[in-house]
């Protein structure tokens, strides 16, 4: 069987019409949703940023800490560690930093790191990781 006869026998026309309609339905649906998506997100964000501003204001004052000057004897190791930290990213796990320090043959890495922690030159970021205290100059 060939020709129009075959198409009709196999319900070709219906399949084609319904088929293309579904494809269109799908993409129109998606298109319409996406078009709204960023508007909805914008609404949420406006709300969020408003709440955040309320929350942040009192905090901001707390955060302004005076710059810390490290004692001379650990400033040297601070510089070394800071150099290492450039390779580990802004926020780093301590063991990794220590590992780097050992590999580079830094002098007394464990206790040097300990002193930096005590001097708050390296501070926890609150997620188990650590970061450099930006108020410290070395």
């Amino acid at each position, binding site marked *: 069987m060939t020709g129009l006869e075959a198409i009709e026998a196999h319900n070709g026309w219906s399949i084609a019409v319904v088929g293309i309609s579904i494809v269109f339905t*799908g993409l129109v649906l*998606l298109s319409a949703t996406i078009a709204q*998506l*960023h508007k909805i*997100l914008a609404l949420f964000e406006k709300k969020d940023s408003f709440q955040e501003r309320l929350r942040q204001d009192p905090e901001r004052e707390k955060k302004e800490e005076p710059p810390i000057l490290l004692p001379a004897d650990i400033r040297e190791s601070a510089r070394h560690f800071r150099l290492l930290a450039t390779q580990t990213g802004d926020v780093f796990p301590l063991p990794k930093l220590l590992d780097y320090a050992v590999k580079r043959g830094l002098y007394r890495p464990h206790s040097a790191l300990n002193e930096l922690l005590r001097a708050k030159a390296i501070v926890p970021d609150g997620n188990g990781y650590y970061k450099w205290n930006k108020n410290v100059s070395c």
Partner: protein
Amino acid sequence: MEHLLHLLSQFIANTGYYMLDYRYLTMLCVGCIFIYLGIAKKYEPLLLVPIGFGILMGNIPVFQGLGLAIYEDNSVLHYLYMGVTLGIYPPLIFLGIGAMTDFSTMLARPLLMLLGAAAQMGIFLTFLGALALGFDPKEAASIGIIGGADGPTAIFLTAQLAPALIGPIAVAAYSYMALVPVIQPPIMKLLTTKKERLIRMEEPREVSKKEKILFPIVGFLLCCLLAPAALPLLGMLFFGNLLKECVVAERLAVAARNAVIDTVTILLGITVGASTQADVFLTKESVGIFALGAVAFAVATASGLIFAKIMNLFLKNKINPLLGAAGVSAVPDSARVVQHVGHEEDPTNFLLMHAMAPNVSGVIGSAIGAGVLWSFMMR
């Protein structure tokens, strides 16, 4: 001594040189042409080179029994080919594509997605054509999907509906995808006026990170609730995209868009190529498939263009109708062709970025189309 001569003559009778006939020679030439187009012309080399070499591997005439040919069920090629016949490779490729694709231009301009829908007319009109030529409905659906211009989708659907046609349909789909820069431009010029081709698109708005993260989730739910049969392909596509956009799973996205997709591309290419074994490939049907495939691409291109012109009747900010041609997936070749043709008219008109929107939505569109055909045929 007698046995030695016997062994030798038997060996000679089993060499490929002895068993070679014009059919295998033809296919070996086809394989070489694929490799040539891939390497020298740089048409989709990541697909044509593996498929081309696969055609060579599938068309060394071998004796039966050892498990050498892809259609013997204890051959290595057969085991690797199961990734095709069971439908495993295409979703994994979609995973990788998802992890590579940036949907932002589409998100910035959702209206352009309709062009990706329109170009899928090629699928259904070719389906009708294939019915008319006497193919049975499942075969016709598999042939129609060539018009989706999306290799993995075509292979996935054919593996489900008409596994015997995987070879010709995959080869036709990839051939025409590689030939997009040859097929599309004349149709595009024929169906658009110079003035239309000169239309400039306005710059898309910026898309936020949150939108990009939400899109794969929303897109997945909307599309797969509508056409559940598109789930294996679209699920993986959107999943890969979520891995890419969410940043926190970056190492998984890296695996998906490198190790996974590249390995699967190698295996899919070589086995799909090898499935073109001369005795199953060189048939009257294959000729019909190739003819219909060309029609499918032409119709898809035309549908996209014409739909864009129709949309322009209703839009204030006109769309450059050339973008319609990018609806036929074939990422990113057809988008590049749009850029090219637009550029010929006005070298300062930069359409590539805009063409990516219908281009990637065309991928979604043909996956839905495949799902629909699959579910219709299996009743």
